[in-house]
């Protein structure tokens, strides 16, 4: 059987090959469209300069996800436990989605400065909604027959949460987290574009201003690798904690990106 990654890799190679040939025969200057070989060269040769920036961005993304989880998991639980609270809070959650969060980036920089705090908050604010809503949906999707079973066993809310609702909602939680890691990356980068002293977004803005397009692409390449790695970390966690689910449930690009 052919491995599933074979075809995508072939397509990628073909596209990169076309790009390489195109940039060589078109005679376009390097600062407009650098050749892939040049981008790769910069990415590898200048890795010692790029990696510290990538590290900062990674820390921002992970801290942003952690912060979002620290707020959204308890919030989803509380909203699930108290439907009246859900009714009270739901309009705000929806409204918070109507605000283009990216537009807040300049304000966050004003409030929290050029350090990583503003980027962490940016990432957290963006992914907070999909994670909360997904988890709440997951809790609510729990089959009533199971709830009755737990009630008849005399289980209190905490026991039911731990043994029934949480495992039941876990697939929903992971689909929220999957969306979260990709969107958190965007949040961190935008935060860095607006105002930062380090990070891949900062590197991109700086290089762009100097027409060092190859460096911009190198930053994008590293960012993509990071995103891919995060994606796989979530995939690995999902595989580990959802092993009981049918193995046919392959990760897909589905989900709602806010």
């Amino acid at each position, binding site marked *: 059987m052919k491995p599933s990654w074979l075809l995508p890799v072939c397509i990628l190679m073909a596209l990169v090959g076309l790009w390489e040939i195109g940039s060589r025969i078109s005679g376009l200057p390097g600062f407009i469209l650098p050749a892939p070989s040049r981008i790769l060269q910069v990415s590898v040769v200048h890795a010692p300069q790029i990696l510290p920036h990538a590290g900062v961005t990674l820390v921002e993304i992970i801290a942003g996800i952690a912060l979002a989880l620290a707020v959204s998991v308890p919030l989803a639980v509380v909203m699930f436990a108290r439907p009246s609270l859900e009714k009270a809070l739901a309009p705000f959650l929806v409204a918070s989605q109507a605000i283009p969060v990216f537009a807040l980036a300049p304000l966050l920089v004003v409030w929290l400065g050029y350090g990583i705090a503003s980027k962490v908050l940016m990432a957290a604010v963006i992914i907070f909604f999909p994670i909360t809503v997904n988890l709440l949906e997951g809790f609510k999707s729990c089959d009533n027959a199971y709830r*009755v079973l737990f009630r008849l066993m005399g289980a209190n809310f905490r026991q039911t949460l731990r*043994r029934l609702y949480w*495992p039941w909602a876990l697939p929903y939680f992971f689909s929220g987290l999957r969306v979260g890691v990709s969107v958190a990356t965007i949040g961190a980068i935008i935060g860095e574009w607006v105002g930062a002293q380090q990070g891949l977004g900062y590197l991109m803005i700086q290089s762009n201003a100097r027409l060092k397009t190859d460096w911009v692409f190198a930053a994008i390449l590293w960012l993509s690798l990071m995103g891919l790695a995060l994606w796989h970390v979530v995939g690995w966690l999902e595989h580990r904690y959802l092993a009981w689910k049918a193995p046919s449930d392959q990760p897909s690009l589905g989900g709602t990106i806010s």
Partner: protein
Amino acid sequence: MGCRLLIIENVTKHFNGLRVVSDVSLTLHENGFTVLIGPSGCGKSTLFDLLMGVVPMETGRIRWHHAAVPDLNRLAAYMQQSDLLLPWLGLVDNARLPADIAGEPIKASSPRIQGLFDRLGLVGFENHLPSMVSGGMRQRCALARTLMFGRDIVLLDEPLSALDAITRRSLQEMLGLLQTDFNKTILMVTHDIEEALLLADELLVLTPPPMQIQARMVLEHPKPRRMEDPDLLAIKNRVLAMLQEKRPS
């Protein structure tokens, strides 16, 4: 037959102005096997929901050892048609759930579970996930979990109706064990007449909705029974005739 353990009197329930359960009374005797049989959709599951306190009762009284109780929530274990095993837990952990929730340490509950798995033919499958075993095994695991409730009364709501005929026969023997080996008092609803006749000490025939009891019969035939018994066959035909009768208007 043992002494009266549980007396249920005059239970009535309406849904959306429609009478679903109409003045049902029944008595469970200690270690007895009482079977309710009726056409599908006659309100049998509603009756169980009422008894278990899942749905509030309108009228009616329940007396347990002569003391009035609101429902059987803490007195009975309930087993349903669908096994309701948690798909992320192995069979043994599923069976352990009631003990777990009651705060019993694993060490304390393990010997009992092992005994049940032994008796119910689940040995060797302790750590299999429900999705990895057959429907019959899942239902046996659900039976083990029901027994782990540690309650005297067991309510069975068509526990075998989702299974194929062959599996069902072997599981009927397991249900018999509830009475003979585990000394439970059983109230079962089913629409399988043969199942009812093989297991019941007392058989109550229900009417189509609104649900009423149209006949009571006591079966004193020794168990295990065989359907070839001409006596049972005669009863079967009588019950069939009752169930097929047109609904009195």
